[in-house]
């Protein structure tokens, strides 16, 4: 059975070793990935990671230096933007400020020289679909953020695209509105099942909307998987850090009198079988404050000083410092013992089988 990354059949959008350099620096460096029909995929990464450049190449705004873009099996690399059937929704929506809602939505049809009667029919149908009828004569600045988003979607969808591209449409908005509009995108997707690509640097946005998430860093594809797989099995230290893991440690196997240990930041944990030298992630919600000096079986423990306690509402976050290493833990507010105060000597432990082995070293 061919692996998912190599099958061409069934891929709606396929990127082949796509590369783009700006002034000798590779903004996108040999990225290959395939999106299935009807899938909602996020391109997630820090700013400067190459995700917007990648989206602009798919949209046809930026020409790749190498590689190919296939939509429904056909190379669109040399096609002009509007022929690709990839409709773009921009950051802050980029509605034309000097045109009314009607003319914004009609813009694509006007460029195609569609007749006036047909334009009127299609635009009112599109506006009805996004529940904006009656606002035809308004200008974008007279609309709320939610209404602007719906105009932008109507403007993009009126040309019946094959692919919907969302370029950080929700940055610059306040968190509450963001959440609401983010749900709108997912809802539209559920209705239309249109293959959708969302560029974002917001992990929550990517994880809550997407079927699969592609993590981009320094122009490379770091990992492409479901949100859960990315969080629980990060492919690299970069991904682990980016999705919020704070404890990335080095483990070295040690053998003493026929017993196997794993040395982690000065602490030694007893193993059943020989360990491997590697980087490990210790999930924050697995770290516990031990009440006595003994470490339970199957756990690793580290003695240190309770350095910092942060109250986050539902969660309490704490730091234990031991030598040069700092371990961050999180526990539910109602499980936190109030008697624990910063400065006391304590012991942090975590179950060994919950440690995530990072394939690539730090």
């Amino acid at each position, binding site marked *: 059975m061919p692996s998912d990354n190599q099958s061409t059949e069934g891929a709606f959008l396929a990127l082949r070793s796509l590369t783009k350099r700006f002034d000798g620096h590779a903004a996108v460096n040999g990225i290959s990935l395939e999106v299935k029909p009807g899938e909602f995929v996020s391109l997630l990464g820090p700013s400067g990671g190459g995700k917007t450049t990648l989206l*602009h190449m798919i*949209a*046809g*705004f930026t020409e790749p230096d190498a590689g190919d873009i296939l939509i429904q099996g056909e190379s669109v690399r040399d096609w002009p*933007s*509007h022929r690709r059937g*990839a*409709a*773009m929704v*921009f*950051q*802050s929506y*980029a*509605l*034309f*400020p*000097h045109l009314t809602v009607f003319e914004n939505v009609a*813009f*694509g049809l006007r*460029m*195609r020289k569609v007749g006036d009667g047909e334009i009127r029919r299609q635009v009112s149908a599109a506006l009805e679909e996004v529940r904006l009828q009656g606002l035809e004569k308004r*200008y*974008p*600045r007279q609309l709320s953020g939610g209404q602007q988003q719906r105009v932008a979607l109507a*403007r993009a969808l009126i*040309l019946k695209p094959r692919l919907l591209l969302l370029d950080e449409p929700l940055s610059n908005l306040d968190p509450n509105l963001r959440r609401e509009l983010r749900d709108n995108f997912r809802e539209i997707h559920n209705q239309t099942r249109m293959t959708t690509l969302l560029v974002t640097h917001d992990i929550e946005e990517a994880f809550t909307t997407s079927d699969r998430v592609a993590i981009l860093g320094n122009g490379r594809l770091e990992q492409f998987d479901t949100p859960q797989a990315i969080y629980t099995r990060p492919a690299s230290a970069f991904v682990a850090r980016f999705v919020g893991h704070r404890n990335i440690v080095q483990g070295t196997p040690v053998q003493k009198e026929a017993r196997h240990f794993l040395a982690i930041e000065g602490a030694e944990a007893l193993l059943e079988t020989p360990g491997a030298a590697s980087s490990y992630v210790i999930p924050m919600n697995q770290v516990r404050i031990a009440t006595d000096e003994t470490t339970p079986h199957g756990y690793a423990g580290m003695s240190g000083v309770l350095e910092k306690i942060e109250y986050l509402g539902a969660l309490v976050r704490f730091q234990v410092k031991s030598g040069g290493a700092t371990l961050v833990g999180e526990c539910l507010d109602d499980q936190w013992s109030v008697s624990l105060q910063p400065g006391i000597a304590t012991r942090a432990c975590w179950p060994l089988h919950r440690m995530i082995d990072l394939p690539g070293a730090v």
Partner: protein
Amino acid sequence: MTTARLRSASLIMPALIFIAALFLAPVVQILAGSFVQTNSGGWTFTAGLYEAFFTDAYSWRLLERTLRISAITTLACLVMAFPVALLMRRLSSAQRTVLAILLLSPLLTSVVVRTLAWVILLGPVGLINKTLGVLGIAPVALMYNDIGVIIGLTHVFFGYMLLAITASMLKLDERLVLAAINLGASRWQVLRTIVFPLCLPGIVSGSVLVFTMSASAYIVPVLLGGTATKVMATEVYDLAINYLEWKEAAVVAAVLFVTVWLIVAALARFATRHERIGEGG
């Protein structure tokens, strides 16, 4: 008005007093003077000088020439500055600064020096006509006519137009251009439907600047137009300085002033309507 607003209003007082004393007062005095006839001991109100002005075909020719030259200069500046402003958008800010300094250098040169340079170029025995002579082509009249004045004015005022258009061009969000391309607009359609309308505020303010400055320009028409191409501003100077006809000069000045301001007011109305639409979004 609240105290806070009163206090902030007081901030404009120095400028207001300055303008009132040194600009508005003399203007009002000139305008008032043109309506007043002094006889021995008293004075009477009269529009007689205006009547004389408007019944003279010569005055109409002057006014028409002034407005025509100003309009053509404005249009020429616009046609030349718009593509340069488009180019400015594509440049890095360092490249933009270099190009701007190069293009604005005429503004940094004395108007007399700059205009004399044009005399050397455009004159009957100037560089251009000498070159044409060498090539065996008949000389062309590039000076002492409207063309000379328009060339000189366009050279001087191009920079103002460029600054005004570039300012609104740089404010234009690149995403609007990409959105239009994504929706199927050709380069020309992007220019016509997005860039041009959104740059209208800059185009209008640049046009207002160039038009008013052209209509009141004095040195360029004198040096490049000569006596054959008199405009309102040179007529004001002649009447006031050479003939000591202060009241007639005031009439010409008043007519020029009112005509230009009517045109500017119409343009400004047009601009604010588009500015209102263009903002936000």
